């Protein structure tokens, strides 16, 4: 199987602080890859390097390469097109302060789709794919800020799907949600991996064990262990991984 995303010798610095140390990783298509590790270990930072959101951070310096289908995303690729191909869902649901419809249509409009019929179609399809169409079809014109936290997060997933990405990055997408909403998002993620490649940062080890195919364990900016989720959780190769998943620290 050819890999979707290849991370090659990636180093990242915030000023003098060496936040990611020589990361090598290959992420397979149509799988859920989970990043786990204690806070501040660099897992979110690595995620944000995959769609170049770290470009915004002042004093942030990256070396190495990230390749999407073999294309170097840091050389010669239009950032905006890259972010269209690699969508992102944030830790805190961040719907725009506009209607549900306009939230979903925001991305397609950005990329030049004007036709009302086409937009209607995209909105419905995205909401269906995010398994939230039935809940929201009657309130498309209502403000998205009136939705519950879980609905907002699924709306944000639908919003990301509306620009037809290839990869979906999820940065602790359930950490601000209640257990019921969390399980809905998890089911959704499993459903979505048929069509998308999903990379998910999570604090919750059970979540990683439940839904991911591959897991990477991070500590102090390094990948300690990366492999099949099942074997990583059942027979960790590294002592530090074992300590973490058995709850001895973190």
């Amino acid at each position, binding site marked *: 199987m050819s890999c979707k995303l290849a991370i090659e010798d990636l*180093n990242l610095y915030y000023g003098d602080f060496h936040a990611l*140390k*020589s990361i090598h990783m290959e992420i397979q298509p149509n799988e859920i890859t989970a990043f786990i590790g204690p806070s501040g270990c660099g897992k979110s930072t690595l995620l944000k390097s995959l769609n170049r959101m*770290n*470009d915004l951070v002042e004093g942030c310096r*990256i*070396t190495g*390469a990230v390749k999407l289908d073999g294309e170097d995303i840091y050389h010669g690729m*239009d*950032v905006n097109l890259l972010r269209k191909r690699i969508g992102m869902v944030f830790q805190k649901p961040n719907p725009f302060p506009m209607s549900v419809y306009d939230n979903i249509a925001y991305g397609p409009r950005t990329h030049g789709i004007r036709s009302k019929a086409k937009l209607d179609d995209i909105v419905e399809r995205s909401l269906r794919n995010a398994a939230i169409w039935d809940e929201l079809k009657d309130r498309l014109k209502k403000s998205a800020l009136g939705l519950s936290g879980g609905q907002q997060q699924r709306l944000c997933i639908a919003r990301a799907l509306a620009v037809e990405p290839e990869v979906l990055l999820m940065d602790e997408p359930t950490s601000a949600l209640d257990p019921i909403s969390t399980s809905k998002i998890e089911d959704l993620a499993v459903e979505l991996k048929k069509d998308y490649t999903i990379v998910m940062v999570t604090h919750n080890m059970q979540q990683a064990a439940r839904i991911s195919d591959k897991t990477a364990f991070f500590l102090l900016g390094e990948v300690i262990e990366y492999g099949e989720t099942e074997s990583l959780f059942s027979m960790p190769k590294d002592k530090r991984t074992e300590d973490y998943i058995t709850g001895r620290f973190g």
Partner: protein
Amino acid sequence: MTMERTCKPVAAETINKLTFKDKMRAYKRSPLSLILLLLVCGAALITMLTLLYLIVYILVKGIPYITPDLFSFTYTSDNVSLMPALISTVVMTIIALVIALPLGIGAAIYSVEYAKRGNKLVQLVRITTETLSGIPSIVYGLFGYLCFVTALHWGYSLLAGAFTVAIMILPLIMRTTEEALISVPDSFREGSFGLGAGRLRTVFHIVLPSAVPGILSGVILAIGRVVGESAALMYTAGSVAQMPGQAGGGLFDSVRTLSVHMYVLSSEGLHIDKTYATAVVLLVIVIGINALSSFVAKKITKKQG
């Protein structure tokens, strides 16, 4: 692994900075973004060029006419000296501050240190100060005319003008003092109360001293307001170009401040060169006040930071 971490060389090429070429290509793909960028930069340019043009124009036209007789102590119709107006402005500012400072600081102390949360009076005070800060200066001028000049029989006088502008700067002083008091950490107060000090002692020995820089920046802004004011003073302080008290009436003599002086000169249109020169003096004062206020503001942030 630990070895590698400590001696990893930082040599490889930084890859996460957009090059000019990258940006141009993105704009080519999305012309709207380029248009928005140009609009935003254009507007900022217009704003700044307007200000720059105003300042440079007045400086260039006015500086050659700044001569010693502009600062002569007597004003005559031949030599429209600005010295009487300058000194009147200083006196006016000082009196207005003497009136407004205790009132403004006292009111701020009451609403921050004494009143309970959600106090109805404090809410009313807040609404009225907001109203006061929105009232145009000509309305203040008319009020001062009706109240101080006519009803109290002070006549056109320095004092009537000073009272009028004192009310104008009151909301400004109250607001800045309130903000300064609020930013004093509660731990200071608790510490003082914990040592058995009363509320009054706490306010005067602990809270107020820490709030001084904030209050000072408010005072500087207030000085700027008074120096720039003209509409509120035309019909309260009048427009007689003389030293304060020169006619023997003390504070009840009519005077003109620098801004009113400038207005009178430019509407007479007889001494256009001197008008430019007066504008220069006014501008320099205002720039000086602004520089001072941002200097003080920087001091505050440094202290907090």
